[in-house]
């Protein structure tokens, strides 16, 4: 329909209703813009404070200033841990050039500078725990398996795709391209930073362990916070990206070493980069330093001697510990095989971790405190002390050893064919020890003597399981020693109930016999063994062993002095301990421990040859661990040593010489029979 007036006028062909509709449009435009203005006005005028607060929260950030982590020294002041700067190269995807050609140039140069050969080391950004280190091993393993499946790809393509992915996810979150970058490379990148937009070099302190493998089990290592402990650490003031001690002293003394972070408020841009500092800075407090009781020189000698012995005995693993029996200070602690804890600094490579983890000899495990083995004859000090104290024997009580004894079957006591034979080790030479008293029994390590002291025989009443076990506990077996290292295990002192639960069998007298000579069910760590002997050596005080003797602040002031910490006095009269000491002295003088004897210094010691389930030899004998525990000088002991060689054979011929060499290195005195 046309406007008749318009036609009449010849003025316009625009119909009236069209004009009305356009007017509606105009009104709509005014209304729409009006509504928008009202909405914006509400935000800007009435809600301004709310948004301003949010804007400030975006731009101001309270950041933590990292505290210098404490270092560690050996007892002579030798530096064991250093903090060294480590360079990580990161890329902020949003800051890369937009132009694809320019971006490709940056990536190509980066690949060139970092000598990236393939894509194996790159972790997808959404799996990275934090800046500084390629975060968790699981993610790395994943990247590794991906790489294997897809084959090695061209690093430039891979990096380009990775950064594109990262840009879509979190454009301003820095992606760690490589950590632990060489100083020279880091400086080159800094010099070229104008041509490498988006690329940043960050500096972070990293631990360096000059002694490497030698001290790795003691010092431990650091790494990213384990996922399952995240909340715990964060509640203690850690940032999710912080490195924390994960093993050894780094873990044990984390609270001392970490120090207190400082704080400052900064203005940041969207990438979190500091624009300027606002207000006062609270400076960080450096962590405390540790002075260890370890003597690095003795540690080194011990390691070399043990390594040589393992090689000769074709043994997969072994332990040697030296400690001061007067106060529980550990002077040397070696567990072989070891690992280089420097591998962990700055993030361990997945293949390294996999290799260490897959190794059957378990190099990551400190066998000195985490390995539990049958202690063999070293355990005989327990029935000896218990037997004397409980009046089961006197020092002059004679017990006859024929090399073999028959225990009648408990259901058919009159049928000798059903009796069970128990052997002394000497039986294989075709005779027994004859009638001997305690001292000689220790010197010869007679098994039948201790069978009977512990389990009784015929009319002779022994200690019995309960009393034997209670003395074992008194010596620290089956209990944590409480050493200041993480991961210690208890070992095992069995009870009748334990056997019923685990084997559904009753405890029989034969079990007590086996236990008396450190076989059967009883298990101990090398540290428990040496600590029990230290208590004999010092006249009856069981001390808590420790590795750290002083905690010192950054200015050198002693914060804490770790003195001797008595666990308990042995419940054994000193005269009885003297009897055992005499036996141990004689064992080295003329018995099984002669290989440990020194020229001019009296050594006391005890061998152990502990059978363990394994492949029997040609004669049908089970394989044995070789043990030797010693202390010296016998009159006033200042060092106690244990040597444990896994599957090494005879304690007397395999472990005793090593203990002798360690003592020889400590005193600077040659061994008496080193020629043999």
């Amino acid at each position, binding site marked *: 329909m046309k*406007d008749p*007036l*318009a036609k*009449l*006028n010849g*003025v*316009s*062909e*625009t*119909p*009236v*209703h*069209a*004009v009305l*509709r*356009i*007017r509606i*449009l*105009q009104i*709509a*435009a*005014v209304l*729409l*813009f009006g509504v*928008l*203005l009202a*909405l*914006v*006005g509400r*935000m*800007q*005028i009435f*809600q*301004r404070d*709310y*948004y*301003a607060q*949010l*804007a*400030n929260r*975006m*731009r101001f950030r309270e950041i933590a200033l990292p505290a210098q982590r404490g270092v560690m020294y050996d007892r002579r002041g030798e530096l064991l841990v250093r903090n060294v700067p480590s360079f990580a190269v990161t890329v902020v995807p*949003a800051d890369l*050039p*937009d132009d694809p050609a320019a971006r490709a140039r940056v990536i190509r140069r980066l690949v060139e500078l970092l000598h990236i050969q393939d894509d194996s080391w790159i972790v997808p950004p959404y799996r990275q725990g934090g800046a500084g280190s390629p975060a968790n091993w699981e993610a790395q393993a994943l990247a590794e398996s991906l790489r294997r499946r897809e084959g090695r790809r061209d690093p430039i393509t891979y990096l380009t795709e990775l950064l594109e992915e990262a840009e879509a*996810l*979190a*454009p*301003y979150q820095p992606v760690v391209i490589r950590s632990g970058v060489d100083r020279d490379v880091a400086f080159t990148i800094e010099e070229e930073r104008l041509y490498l*937009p988006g690329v940043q070099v960050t500096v972070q302190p990293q631990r360096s362990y000059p002694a490497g493998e030698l001290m790795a089990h003691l010092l431990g290592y650091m790494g990213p916070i384990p996922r399952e402990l995240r909340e715990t650490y964060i509640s203690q003031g850690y940032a999710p990206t912080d490195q924390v001690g994960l093993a050894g002293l780094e873990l044990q003394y984390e609270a001392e070493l970490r120090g207190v972070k400082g704080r400052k408020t900064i*203005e*940041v*841009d*969207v*990438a979190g980069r500091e*624009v300027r500092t606002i207000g006062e800075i609270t400076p960080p407090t450096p962590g405390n330093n540790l002075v260890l009781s370890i003597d690095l020189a003795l540690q080194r000698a011990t390691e070399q001697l043990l390594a040589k012995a393992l090689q000769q005995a074709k043994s997969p693993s072994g332990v040697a510990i030296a400690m001061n029996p007067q106060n529980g200070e550990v002077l040397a602690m070696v567990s072989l095989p070891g690992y280089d804890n420097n591998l962990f600094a700055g993030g361990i490579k997945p293949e390294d971790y996999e290799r260490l983890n897959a190794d059957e000899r378990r190099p990551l495990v400190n066998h000195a405190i985490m390995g539990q083995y049958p202690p063999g004859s070293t355990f005989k000090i327990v029935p000896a002390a218990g037997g004397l104290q409980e009046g089961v024997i006197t020092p002059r009580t004679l017990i006859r050893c024929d090399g073999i004894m028959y225990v009648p079957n408990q259901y058919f006591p009159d049928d000798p064919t059903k009796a069970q034979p128990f052997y002394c080790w000497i039986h294989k030479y075709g005779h027994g020890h004859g009638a001997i008293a305690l001292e000689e029994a220790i010197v010869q390590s007679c098994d039948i003597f201790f069978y009977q002291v512990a389990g009784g025989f015929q009319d002779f009443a022994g200690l019995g399981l309960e009393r034997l076990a209670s003395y074992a506990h008194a010596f620290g077996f089956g209990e944590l020693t409480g050493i200041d290292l993480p991961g210690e295990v208890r070992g095992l002192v069995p009870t009748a109930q334990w056997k019923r639960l685990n084997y559904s069998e009753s405890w029989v007298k034969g079990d007590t016999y086996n236990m008396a000579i450190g076989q059967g069910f009883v298990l101990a760590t090398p540290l428990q063994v040496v600590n029990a002997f230290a208590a004999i050596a010092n006249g009856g005080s069981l001390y808590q062993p420790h590795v750290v003797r002083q905690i010192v602040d950054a200015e050198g002031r002693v914060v804490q002095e770790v003195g001797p910490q008595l666990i308990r006095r042995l419940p054994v009269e000193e005269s009885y301990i003297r009897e055992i000491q005499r036996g141990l002295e004689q064992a080295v003088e003329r018995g099984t421990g002669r290989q440990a004897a020194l020229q001019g210094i009296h050594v006391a010691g005890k061998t152990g040859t502990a059978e363990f389930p394994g492949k029997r030899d040609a004669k049908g004998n089970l394989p044995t661990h070789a043990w030797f525990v010693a202390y010296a000088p016998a009159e006033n002991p200042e060092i106690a040593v244990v040597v444990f060689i896994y599957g090494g054979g005879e304690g007397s011929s395999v472990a005793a010489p090593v203990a002798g060499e360690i003592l020889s290195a400590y005193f600077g005195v040659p061994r008496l029979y080193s020629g043999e």
Partner: protein
Amino acid sequence: MRKVNWRHFDLLLLLATALLVGYGVLMISSAVSDSPGLQELPRRQAVYAGIGAALMLGATLIDYRHLRDFRYPMYFLALGLLVLVLAVGEESYGAQRWVNLRFFPIQPAEIAKILLIIFLAAYFDGRQEEITSFRTFVVSLLFVLPAVALIMAQPNLSTAVSLLVLWGVMAFVAGVRLRYLLGLLAAGVLASPALWALLADYQRQRILIFLNPSSDSMANYNVWQAMIGIGSGGLLGKGFAMGSQSQLRFLRVRWSDFIFAVIGEELGFIGVLILVALLLVVVLRLLRGAIRARDMMGQLIAVGVATLILFQSVVNIGMNIGMLPATGVPLPFVSSGGSSLIAFLMAEGLVQSVNLRRLKVEYPLASRVGGSIP
């Protein structure tokens, strides 16, 4: 050809447009003042404005009525451009919207929108006698749908919607029966569950995020940063190149899609008021041109251009203040970007062409409404 009357050139429209473009260049330079890699942008925008101004003049000089004869070539050129994007376009932020010409990348959809305005104006003009028929309604819609489908395939939901709105408003003003248009709208609402199935994942995601902002903090990040910027700007703003959200780069693409947030933060409500007033002047002056046009084609061209500017402004500002879903719609004349700026300037030239060729009488409307004969 009839004589043109330069007295009818809409100077106020030109002035408001020039102010908007200048405002844009200024704020782009503020937005990128701290980004060394982007220093080119404001200068480039000024160059585009120059090219746009030349094309605007060219469009003004052309008699728009001649375009009627080229309506089908123009229609197929529009479709061809959209097909070209799909075939050779470069992907950016996950959508193919760009075609790289030798000198600068263009977004063919911007050009296609203008071509479709001319085509629809010519089409409705040619069917004035049967404008109320169902056939006109259906056929005009069928012409638009292929373009909508092609744009959806890029995928670019917002431009597709803007085309449908454009068609709807032009059809409404042309005189297509309101009941058809409302019927279609109702049908669209009823069919929305089915349409939902046709959307790309990211499009559904965005709509969901808009409806439930806390569901995805990352995707909603940009809008949230824009809102913080605008709200914290207050009445007077934080000052030119002083906005913490803009200058510390919490705002992404602050020079284009989020230029409004930079204005709101740095120049405050006063700056927003000026911007909205200028946009309103442009839209109202374009519609004024529509009212005075000599014929339906000119009228509909002006209506189409005004609608597009109004729609895009509302959608862009609405997105900046978190009232509408996040889409990649630039703010007309202000956002950095050559294609959009040049296309809008050219379109405005066409409306000026309509202005120049209207009938001599100064106030025809008054004469009609007032009923007096001068």
